[in-house]
């Protein structure tokens, strides 16, 4: 029954933060709720890693390797974001009687609730609704600043992702049609995988492409990625961490779930489609990274790039690449959350997101500067970061599999992205600060959150705990084709 409780913690916290009196109550409740779901999902992940699948309601709620991994990542990033919000939101909109703060926490908890529901649900129609809710419940977080830009970003975000969700809906309905055509069975991931070989390949292929394009919009895959840098740069930093770190991952998870289903049909070349879509995203993002002028947009484009890498890796096929992809999911979620915390810290100490306006951050605000440098290095994939390890394992396994062209292009784009990110981060962290640059400290909660996330970001590059290794292997088995 613990699975039922996991999303209910934030839901309860949402209600409580709306009604509890006291200025800090909302922030504290949110943190406690997120922490509770983190502990619960950590426990679930441990049990799954040991080889015991966790089933709450057969056919509706259960957890296997891949979903446990995504679940734990969402809970972890959610907890860190709740902690970071404690300092960040207070700094930005604090004072007064805290009405806007309260509103923020209510929305934040609802968003976390919808995110946690995505990997837990098995029934595909409900998964679709959970994904739709992640959009609807996060709109007002994106537009939280209520500036012209924030509202523009929120509008683009909601319109494009809802459009994608409608396209994906038809894909899901087609899958259901295929399932019924074979004589029925449960409309769950497992039931679908079992029935897939008997479904017509044309149907599977069309349905998969509809889901790929539709949910690809929400994941930030290239033809429909335009909303992503806007939304991920305008939202408050802790929300960006959730949006960029785990929301994209949670939606990508639903696409990945379909991979083994569709791979069962012989005539539809799913691998080629995934590699093409993935490489397109990586390539476009790598070159957009060069010309960006906004520090949060920089990390947002890097999200597009990483989603592309994961998709291409899954498309390459083979157990080793799949393991790399699972590792990439983990490392990207944590590192990207850290990057957005760092950019939030930079925003708090400089008051701007403009790359050209930030200089010598390491002098004016050492914690923010150090965090931004570490984040930049880690997300660009400098050794020995976790991202480096996962990207390297994908490339190595791809070459071992003999797919030189795809791997070569992937490596080229990754290098371009690395250069672009490091160029911008270098300019912001080092260099001479302007004469009027303010000197400001960081709230304690922000520093704690930064350190808490920095530990796994650095550590996972050096050493993979055996529990995580086991979990990743089970996750990889779920996306392998």
């Amino acid at each position: 029954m613990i699975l039922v409780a996991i999303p209910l913690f934030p839901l309860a916290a949402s209600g409580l933060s709306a009604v509890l009196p006291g200025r800090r109550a909302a922030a504290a409740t949110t943190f406690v709720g997120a922490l509770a779901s983190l502990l619960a999902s950590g426990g679930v992940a441990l049990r799954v890693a040991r080889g015991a699948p966790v089933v709450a309601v057969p056919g509706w709620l259960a957890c296997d390797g891949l979903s446990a991994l995504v679940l734990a990542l969402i809970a972890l990033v959610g907890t860190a974001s709740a902690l970071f919000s404690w300092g960040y939101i207070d700094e930005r909109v604090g004072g007064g009687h805290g009405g806007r703060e309260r509103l923020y926490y209510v929305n934040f908890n609802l968003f976390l609730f919808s995110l946690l529901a995505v990997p837990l649900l098995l029934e595909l129609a409900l998964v679709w609704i959970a994904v739709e809710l992640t959009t609807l419940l996060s709109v007002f977080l994106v537009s939280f600043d209520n500036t012209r830009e924030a509202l523009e970003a929120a509008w683009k975000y909601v319109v494009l992702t809802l459009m994608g969700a409608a396209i994906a809906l038809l894909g899901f309905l087609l899958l259901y049609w295929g399932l019924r055509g074979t004589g029925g069975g449960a409309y769950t991931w497992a039931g679908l995988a079992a029935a897939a070989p008997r479904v017509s390949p044309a149907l599977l292929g069309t349905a998969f492409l509809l889901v790929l394009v539709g949910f690809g919009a929400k994941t930030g895959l290239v033809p429909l990625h335009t909303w992503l840098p806007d939304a991920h740069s305008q939202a408050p930093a802790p929300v960006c961490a959730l949006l960029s770190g785990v929301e994209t991952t949670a939606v990508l998870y639903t696409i990945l779930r379909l991979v083994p289903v569709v791979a069962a049909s012989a005539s539809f070349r799913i691998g080629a489609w995934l590699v093409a879509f993935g490489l397109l995203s990586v390539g476009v993002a790598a070159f957009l990274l060069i010309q960006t002028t906004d520090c949060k947009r920089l990390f947002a484009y890097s999200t597009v790039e990483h989603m592309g890498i994961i998709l291409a890796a899954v498309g390459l096929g083979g157990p080793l690449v799949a393991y790399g992809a699972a590792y990439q999911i983990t490392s990207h979620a944590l590192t990207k959350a850290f990057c957005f915390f760092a950019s939030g810290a930079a925003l708090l100490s400089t008051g701007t997101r403009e790359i050209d306006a930030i200089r010598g951050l390491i002098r004016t605000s050492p914690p923010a500067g150090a965090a931004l440098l570490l984040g930049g290095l880690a997300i660009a994939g400098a050794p020995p970061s976790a991202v480096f390890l996962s990207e390297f394992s994908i490339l190595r396994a791809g070459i071992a599999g003999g797919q030189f062209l795809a791997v070569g292009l992937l490596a080229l784009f990754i290098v371009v992205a690395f250069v672009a990110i490091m160029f911008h981060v270098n300019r912001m962290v080092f260099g001479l600060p302007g004469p009027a640059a303010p000197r400001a400290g960081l709230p304690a909660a922000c520093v704690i959150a930064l350190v808490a996330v920095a530990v796994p970001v650095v550590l996972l590059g050096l050493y993979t705990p055996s529990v995580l290794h086991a979990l990743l292997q089970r996750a990889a088995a779920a996306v392998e084709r």
Partner: protein
Amino acid sequence: MVSSLNDLAGGVFLLTAFGLIVPWQAAQSLRLFVVQSMCLAASALLLASGLGAPDLIAVGALTLATKSLLIPWLLRRTVSREIYTRRELSPVVNVPSSLLVALALVVLSYFVAGPLVAAVPRTFARVNLPIGLAGLLLGAYPLLVRREAIPQVIGILAMENGAFYAGVAIAPDLPLIAELAAAFDVLVIALVLGLLTRTIHERVGTTDVASLATLREIRVSGAILRKESGAREGAAR
């Protein structure tokens, strides 16, 4: 008889989908959307008897209640009346070209749906799947070329209508909880988008969402604009 009436509903559904790409006043688009939703509900109710799926009766009733009553009411409540009488004077694409694009989209949807329908012979899907797909694609068109907020909202809702129109024929026995959740979901969409439109109207002073285009990677103008917003944020602190 059931099949004939379902065909009729399909034809009207397709016509309204076409109507939605023409730049009418927002109120007119909303009326077309209501007619389209009624076609969807009619198709659901007809198929309930045609396919012997009692769930579809609930689906039809829910569609009728939410999409043709509650959503128009919600949208009219949240957004001020004046916006609904506004007409786009300079459409991004002129009407004949829009119609030709729409034509191409319908050809595409019949082309895509053809092999799927051929694979699984089922009479209702022959009508509903291609028309639903066309409704989906035609609903996406206003999102790309219309400037005003309300027509874009209606575009999204019309896309969902298209998907569900195909759905009533190809997935008539979805679990009822999913159908209930979907109806609720559509309501939340209308509410959230209506509130967002209202906020934009209040804060920015326009519902011409196409004019909201400051966020992009153009260095010169973008840098200036973003400096302004940076300064505003600095002031807010």
